[in-house]
């Protein structure tokens, strides 16, 4: 929860700075957001690469285990299709790109910002942060009333790091491996899926 507060306060700090000082010259000089995207995506790849746990995960291989993250992704895609039908102000591909962010707010929002502009980029950032917050706050309830797998599905790409503690606490330690594997697979899939839909 602490990291969510830090994240929201940095975003709010940026908004406040812009409201107080005219930053348009700084922000429009060069391609700031493009370079931010490149730096962010390279660093994100680097952090996945240095993590040794990924190769170890494939030891307890089973078909349900392997397909789990793909079912999670498919569920979010279907959810986004439903939203596109009730909220036609954005196109189906817009909603699909936002909905397949899987809680990976930084990467998905910067990709969407680059391709579709400020408005959809802001929606992507907020919606992926909200997904993480929903997971953190609702984990005990969805474990009790739905399934111990629910918070892993809900966490999406975040189930390997920021929402892993609530999975371990409320679903149980026996689901930690699945949670890490699913989060990692989705982290790899997010940039691919989001770019595909844009």
């Amino acid at each position, binding site marked *: 929860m602490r990291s969510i507060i830090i994240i929201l306060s940095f975003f709010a700090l940026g908004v406040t700075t812009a409201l107080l000082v005219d930053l348009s010259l700084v922000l429009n000089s060069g391609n700031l957001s493009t370079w931010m995207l490149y730096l962010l*995506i390279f660093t994100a790849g680097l952090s996945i690469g240095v993590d040794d746990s990924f190769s170890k995960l494939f030891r307890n291989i089973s078909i349900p285990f392997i397909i789990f993250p793909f079912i999670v992704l498919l569920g979010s895609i279907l959810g986004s299709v439903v939203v596109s039908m009730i909220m036609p102000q954005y196109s189906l591909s817009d909603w699909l790109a936002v909905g397949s962010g899987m809680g990976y707010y930084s990467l998905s929002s910067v990709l969407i910002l680059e391709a579709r502009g400020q408005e959809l980029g*802001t929606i992507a950032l*907020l919606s992926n942060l909200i997904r993480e917050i929903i997971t953190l706050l609702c984990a005990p309830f969805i474990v009790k009333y739905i399934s111990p797998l629910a918070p892993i599905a809900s966490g*999406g790409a975040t189930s390997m790091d920021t929402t892993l503690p609530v999975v371990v606490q409320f679903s149980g330690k026996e689901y930690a491996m699945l949670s890490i594997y699913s989060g990692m697979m989705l982290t790899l899939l997010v940039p691919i899926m989001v770019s595909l839909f844009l």
Partner: protein
Amino acid sequence: MWVVLILFIAGIAVGRLLSTLKLKTGWVDRLLFYVVLIFLWVLGAQAGSDEAIINNFGTLGLSASIIAIAATAGSIILVRIFLHRKSLKSNH
């Protein structure tokens, strides 16, 4: 968007290399954290400089909440339908 995927894969490859050569990697997660913080500030500053965003912040927040809830619910429901918890436990 090809540049993005290439940079992502290049990052993973460099990361694997660092790890294989047993070089120090503790700084990577710290670097990522600071990059994300700067990025969030820039994103906030861009949103704050955009009058259309500021005037419609409530509407954007509502859209964000709806898509977040729908995507999350979709994932939970599909997993509930297709996957059984017993086959997904691990002992280590």
